[in-house]
């Protein structure tokens, strides 16, 4: 079943919190993963793989560099859902 944009945002915020300890409510659409949330590439890959499991989507490695903001990731995941 497809997840709504709000559900994906909330789920992503949960994954970011689990991996980095950053409070979920700081994970807002306009935030940049690297510049605002200070998430390094290793944590980012862990979050991506966990997001694939959580939302049942595929996020190709070459796509990860395009996911600059939280909104980029939410949009990609919503679009990639079957």
């Amino acid at each position, binding site marked *: 079943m497809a997840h709504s944009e709000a559900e994906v945002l909330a789920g992503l915020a949960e994954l970011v919190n*689990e*991996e*980095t*300890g950053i409070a979920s409510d700081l994970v807002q659409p306009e935030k940049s993963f690297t510049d605002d949330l200070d998430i390094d*590439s*290793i944590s980012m890959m*862990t979050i991506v*793989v966990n997001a*694939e499991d959580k939302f049942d989507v595929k996020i190709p490695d070459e796509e990860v560099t395009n996911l600059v903001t939280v909104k980029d990731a939410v949009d990609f995941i919503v679009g990639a859902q079957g």
Partner: protein
Amino acid sequence: MRRVVVTGIGATTPLGGTAGESWNALLAGESGISSLEHEWVQKYELPVTFAGSAKTPASEILTPQEAKRLDPSSQFALISAREAFADAGEPEFDPIRMSVDFATGIGGVWTLLDAFETLKERGPRRVMPMTVPMLMPNGPAAAVGMHFGAKAGVHTAVSACASGNESIANAFHRVKSGAVDIAIAGGAEAAIHPLPIASFAAMQALSKRNDDPSRASRPYDTDRDGFVMGEGAAALVLEDFDSAVARGARIYGEIVGASVTSDAYHITAPDPDGEGASRAMLSALAEAEASPSDVQHVNAHATSTPVGDIAEYTALKKVFGKHTDELIVSATKASTGHLLGGAGAIEAVFTLMALHTSTAPGTINLDNQDAKIPLNVPKSSAALDKGKIAISNSFGFGGHNAVLAFR
């Protein structure tokens, strides 16, 4: 050359979550060894079902985010190093004058083998990107170095069960030569995992006293049947004597000599003549400008294996001759089990505390002392004289011998 003193100690061991708790439990004659409750003990039908697990789990100390990126061996290392640095009074230092020497004998075995399970069951995409930095043997040293901002080098001696002592020896020489001003040194191990247990058991190195775990580690006893695995870490803060005095630091003791030799004899068996081990003791004493008769206390390697305990006695006899009878020997693995790469570090803490409090810890489980090892091994605490030298021995598979001398 500078004099090198220890101004901070830290430990997390089967006896306690801190150096002080571990020391007090040791003096109280406690054992840190117990049956393992993990499901994998039954699952793999392990021939050995007990070990010395850390008394305080790392998860009670570290945040989930800290723990997530560190193998258990690095978690123990960081916990002990933080305690040691706080204990030293958090000295101020120039980062480019501070180094770390932190050992492990085996490395991140939990991370490595868990990741292999993930690979087999779920494929390469699910192998976590932190796997390599978590499993590498220099992980504990790197974690400690990052935490304190040490920029004068972060090093890992890997010499099996001599690793902890070799790391402390290396740190000692760095401070002594003036290469660095302050060093954090220690050793960690977290290898209570079914594979190392199965492997050590296969080589008949482990005690199989499954029905009586707390009495299984019994160095020098006629009924000893192998060592007992332990886990944890210990750390020391090493400083130049003059600057430690200038800042009013508490000094536990001075490291006066350290030596590392190798047997070139057999990959696992100690040289029965004790040539390499005795040479390590003699050169540590030579560096200390001391003679064997200046030594009063020995924290022996004494793992509780039938062959190893005798080989160490032979080496002691070679070094100390008639003076061997005057030595007050402690075999603290009777209480802690064998922390492998962490062993030298926790035993350095115990040796320093013995000098600092003028008290040699007693050795438990010594019911019938092996007649072939007629050492003076008190069963309860014994008084030490001020100003005498104590040595701590560590030997490892590969024929490694590492000896530290303290005063």
